[in-house]
Structures are given as structure tokens and as C-alpha cells.
């Protein structure tokens, strides 16, 4: 199944979803990007260059780890984990970012901008910009700046300017708006490095393509390790890039069940979560460049969202995944904050792995399901990132007192301003 073999006149559409909804001023910029991407995609040496860059700079291929302890403890399916956390900068975001970096070079642009929520994508973009020698500006909701300061610190130290966006809910979606505003002003020398498989075409396709490196590797690796295809594959879904990246490896394997895990936050109910498909609180809309499911009210204005994971609380979702969901090719589940924290603790203690809070959504769902599967079955989880970037959030989620004492002591040491 080639997801990107568009019907005539439906370029950029996956079923009813996708498209390019942008101000006219960006039309030529998007056309230029589409051309550059198309050229790159058709040039085998480009993918080759991409893979080599990811090998030498980011440590790809990332391995697959068998969770022998948890598989045994739960007494069900054999659990395997794709280790995107081992990438340089600590998450799968770098795959997309380095790919776009190569494309920027090809287009001859010298400046990049990016939105970031959790900070992982901004961190990755700042890294890419430093490595490629681009100027860079990262837009980040002021609320996210406050909760993800460590990532901001590194972005700044890699030479990026980080702008705290104070509009709207001051989170990811507002940072995207701000990027669009920058882009319509500076498109001549600037590329907008979108961080997930959302936004206007060709971004969902392009980001999916770069992230497909995950699934390509994973299928071969898992076959080699376990001798068979997985029965179920789990990935968390924020914008949907790590999920589509892994799922692509198994698109043609119709017996492999693909499961997207959304942020269930406090549970169902508008404003409590960021589950666009697993709960019933979202509906189709057009915003931020694309047509897809959004958490919005009857006027089409976006709702507040909530998740313990800053990288999952996005209002919209990858249109490719929506299509696959409607086709019943991908199942969607929501995982609550509480389930996430429990799964995280269990994984740390049993396997010595620290999934990012985002990734822990996939773990939580997979562990629950694995327990009632047979020991011959195999599940695969995408560990999209490592959790040590989340120390403040995790410490808060766990309510760690030593940590609080440490922070108080540090603050004392720094004194007042």
C-alpha cells in the first residue's frame, strides 16, 4: 500500500484528510518545497546521504531491545522495543530534522524556524542548525518554555534564538501559528522545519518519509531477532510522526495490528485530554494548514488540551493516521496520565529503560495488552524518546521530595535576582 500515491487532483490528501490550507503568499514557497522534496525523493542518492548522515551523526540504526523481564513478569506476549531514545538528542525527532536540513541545503536557504512543544523538536532543530550552519529561531509556547527549561537551555547554547510565544494557550499550536507568521514574512531565505507529520502538504508526507527510517529498520531487525512479524505494534501519537514512521514498516503486513496511543490525560471530557480519535471529543476541521480531526468547539475554535506529556497535547492529528483509522488499519487508544506514570515506573525498575513521558503512553497500552496475549505472540513498542529530558516533569508526576529539596537548595544558592 503506497500511502503517498495520490489520486489525480487529490495531491496531499489521505481520504478526506490533509490538503494545503495556507495564505496565498506562501503558495510559491510551498510549491518550491514540493518540488525540492519530489526531486529528493526521486533521487536515490538523497536517501543514501540521509541514511549515512543518520548513521554517522545520530547513531542509526537504533537497536531493538527485548524486554525479557517484563515479558516474563506479565506472562504474556514477548515485548520488544525500538530504541529511538538512543538517537542523538534523545528522540526520533532528529530523523525528520536532519532530513529537512539536507533539503534546506538543497534549496539553498540559510535560515530555519521551528515550533516546539515538549522541546524535543526544537532541541533537534537547534542541533541540526548548528551542524548545518543555519541561522535558527525556535518558537515555543511560554507555558512550554516554563515547563521544559532544560531543552530551552540547550537550544540557546547551540546558538538558536528561542522565542516564548504568549498568544493563545501559549503552547504548541500557538508556536505553530507564530512560525507561520515568521514564514510568510521571511520565506525567501527561510525554511519552516515542521516537527511532526501535520500541517500543510507536503509536510505530512515529507515528515512521514523521513521517519519511515524507523519502520524500515524495525521490520528487518525484529524478523532477525524474533524470527517473526509482530502481532501488534504500539506508538504514541502526538502529531503522529513517530507512529507513522514505525507503522510504515508494517503497512503491507495486514496481520500486524497497528495501535496509536493518544494522551488520555485525566480521562474523557473536553479539555481533559488530547485524544483526537480514541475519545469522542474531536471533530473534523481545517486549521494549521490541514484538514483533520481537531479538539474544537462548535464554532471551530480550539479547545484547551491536557497531558502529562508536553509532546502529546496537540489539538490536531496526522491526516494520514486519520485515514488509516477510518480504514480500520490503525486502532486508536487513549492512555491516562496515571497509567503512564505507572508504566514508566515499572519500565524503569524492571528493564533499566526510561521512556519519555510521550513514549510511556505506548508502553502503558502495550504492557496492558501484552499481559493477556499468548507467550508466543510478539508486540513492538516505539520508544520515541528518552525520559531524562523530562526530569522536572517526571519528578513532579512522581512527587519526589528529594528532588524538591534539591531545587530549593539550588534556588537558595542562586539567591535573589
Amino acid at each position: 500500500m503506497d500511502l503517498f500515491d495520490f489520486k489525480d487532483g487529490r495531491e496531499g490528501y489521505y481520504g478526506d484528510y490533509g490538503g494545503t490550507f495556507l495564505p496565498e503568499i506562501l503558495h510559491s514557497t510551498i510549491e518550491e518545497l514540493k518540488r525540492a522534496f519530489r526531486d529528493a525523493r526521486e533521487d536515490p542518492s538523497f536517501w543514501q546521504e540521509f541514511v549515512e548522515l543518520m548513521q554517522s551523526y545520530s547513531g542509526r540504526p537504533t537497536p531493538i531491545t527485548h524486554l525479557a523481564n517484563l515479558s516474563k513478569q506479565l506472562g504474556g506476549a514477548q515485548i520488544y522495543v525500538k530504541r529511538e531514545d538512543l538517537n542523538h538528542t534523545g528522540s526520533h525527532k532528529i530523523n525528520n530534522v536532519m532530513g529537512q536540513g539536507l533539503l534546506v541545503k538543497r534549496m539553498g536557504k540559510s535560515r530555519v524556524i521551528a515550533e516546539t512543544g515538549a522541546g524535543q523538536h526544537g532541541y533537534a532543530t537547534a542541533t541540526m542548525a548548528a551542524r548545518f550552519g543555519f541561522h535558527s529561531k525556535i518558537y515555543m509556547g511560554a507555558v512550554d518554555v516554563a515547563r521544559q527549561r532544560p531543552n530551552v537551555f540547550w537550544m540557546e547554547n547551540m546558538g538558536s534564538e528561542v522565542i516564548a510565544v504568549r498568544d493563545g494557550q501559549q503552547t504548541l499550536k500557538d508556536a505553530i501559528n507564530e512560525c507561520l507568521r515568521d514564514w510568510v514574512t521571511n520565506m525567501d531565505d527561510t525554511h519552516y522545519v515542521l516537527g511532526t507529520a501535520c500541517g500543510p502538504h507536503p509536510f505530512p508526507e515529507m515528515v512521514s518519509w523521513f521517519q519511515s527510517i524507523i519502520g524500515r529498520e524495525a521490520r528487518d531487525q525484529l524478523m532477525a531477532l524474533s524470527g517473526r512479524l509482530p502481532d501488534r505494534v504500539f506508538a504514541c501519537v502526538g502529531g503522529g510522526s513517530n507512529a507513522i514512521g514505525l507503522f510504515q514498516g508494517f503497512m503491507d503486513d495486514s496481520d500486524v495490528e497497528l495501535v496509536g496511543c493518544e494522551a488520555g490525560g485525566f480521562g474523557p471530557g473536553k479539555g481533559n485530554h488530547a485524544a483526537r480519535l480514541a475519545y469522542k471529543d474531536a471533530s473534523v476541521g481545517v486549521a494549521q494548514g490541514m484538514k483533520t480531526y481537531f479538539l474544537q468547539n462548535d464554532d471551530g475554535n480550539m479547545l484547551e488540551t491536557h497531558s502529562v506529556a508536553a509532546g502529546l497535547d496537540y489539538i490536531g492529528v496526522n491526516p494520514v493516521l486519520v485515514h488509516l483509522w477510518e480504514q480500520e488499519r490503525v486502532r486508536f487508544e487513549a492512555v491516562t496520565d496515571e497509567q503512564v506514570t505507572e508504566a514508566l515506573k515499572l519500565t524503569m525498575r524492571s528493564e533499566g529503560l526510561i521512556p519519555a513521558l510521550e513514549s510511556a503512553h505506548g508502553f502503558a497500552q502495550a504492557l496492558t495488552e501484552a499481559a493477556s496475549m499468548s507467550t508466543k505472540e510478539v508486540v513492538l513498542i516505539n520508544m520515541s524518546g528518552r525520559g531524562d529530558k523530562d526530569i522536572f516533569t517526571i519528578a513532579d508526576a512522581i512527587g519526589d521530595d528529594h528532588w524538591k529539596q534539591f531545587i530549593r537548595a539550588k534556588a537558595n544558592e542562586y539567591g535573589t535576582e
Partner: protein
Amino acid sequence: MALSNYISEQLAAREGSSRGALLMTHVVCGYPSFEENWQELEIMAAAGVELVELQFPFSEPSADGPLFVKANQQAIQNGVHVDDCFEFMQRVTDIFDFKVVMMGYFNTVFKTGPRDFMQRLKAAGGSAFILPDLPVDEAGELHELAAELDLDPIVLMTPTNSPERLQKLAQAAKGFVYCVARKGVTGSQTEMNAEVADFLSTCRKYTDLPLAVGFGVSQKSDVDFIASHADIAVIGTAALKTWESGGAPALTEFFAQLAA
């Protein structure tokens, strides 16, 4: 009367007057409040503006600059809904002579239901609509619905468009064409120079519709410039800024100076 006819008439009427371009102004529905909107509109009407955009607030106004972003947000926080905007539009078209153009983002239309939205727009007395995030390539169906109801989709032309693209835009355009004077979002100053003039004469090559020029129009000299290269000066942020800093007296003075 068709919008373009109205514009031709108004343009003819202005022939030889001190203000050679028509004026299109802008309010964000419910910001600061519907009461203040009304006061602004009274001043605009008194100043003789020919067209007014009523912006339906949207939570993600990505083509707007900081002032309008804040206005959209605040209006939503004030509890402004689509229903309120249509009600307000009805009251406005009942009373005032200027033509009303709905302005907003596509999701507001999409979520209401395009047919429903168009019918309500028609019913409320609107003449046209501007949806800056709906490219013509995606607009086919909506434009058909609009045509049925004799509502004009206002198309934007921009300095970055290729000749082929301008042609395509011209084909879709009705009523007038909104020429975006520069890159960027609403709100900051545009220098009205030879580059803008060139751009406008390029637009003119592709369409016979009246040309409106927007983004950063704020002073008499801008309006004069537009009078000699196009037809309609769009006054957006400048008016809101004036209202916010000086209220009714300042806004009255602002329009007096523009039309002087």
C-alpha cells in the same frame, strides 16, 4: 446590486474628490465589545467608508499580526460565537450603507457547514467573504455555493505569485481582488514604493476587477498612492490601534485626516 457594480459606482462618485480611493475598514466582532464595534462603525460610516470587513474571531489567526491576534483571542474569551457575529452583521447591514464583507478563517465556515454558513451570511446582508487560509485550489465547492447565493469570494494576490498563479487567482476572483502589498502578516507599516506600484500593475494585467490594497495602510499618503495605482485602500490595524489609544475622538480625527 453586485459588489463590483457597487464599487464601480462608488469609484465614479469619488472621481476628482480629495480621496481618490475607496476605503475598506475592519473590525473584529466583539472586540473590545460589540458596543464599541458599533461606535467604531458609526465613525467609519460618518467618514464615508465604502466597505467594512467584519472579522469572525478564530482561535488560530495565523495570518494576523499581534494586535488582531490579541483581538481574536479576547473576543473568544468574551464569549463571542458565530451566532453573535451573524446577529451583529444583521444589525449592521440593517442600519449602515457600506457593504459588509465577512472576514475570517476557513475553519469557522467549515465547522458551521459551508452551505449553512453561506446562507446565513447572505441572510445577514453580507456581500462577500475573505478567508486568507483557503487557497483557491481548495475553494471550488465553496465558491460554487457562493455563486448560487451571489456572494463574492474575495481572492488575494500577493507579490510572490507567479504569472500562472495570478491567472488562476484572477479566474476565481469576484467582487474585487485583495492585493497584499507585502510579505508578512497584518499590522506593520508598508512602504508604498515603486515595488508596490509594479506589483499592482502586474495584478491589473490579470484582472479587470477593482483592486484593494491592504497590509499596513495607515496614512493619507498611502491612500493617495493607492488611489493612483488601485481602487480600494484597506485600513486594518491602524484604525484599531487608534481606537485603543484614543477612543472615538481619535478615530474620528484619524478618518478625517485620511479623507482630507
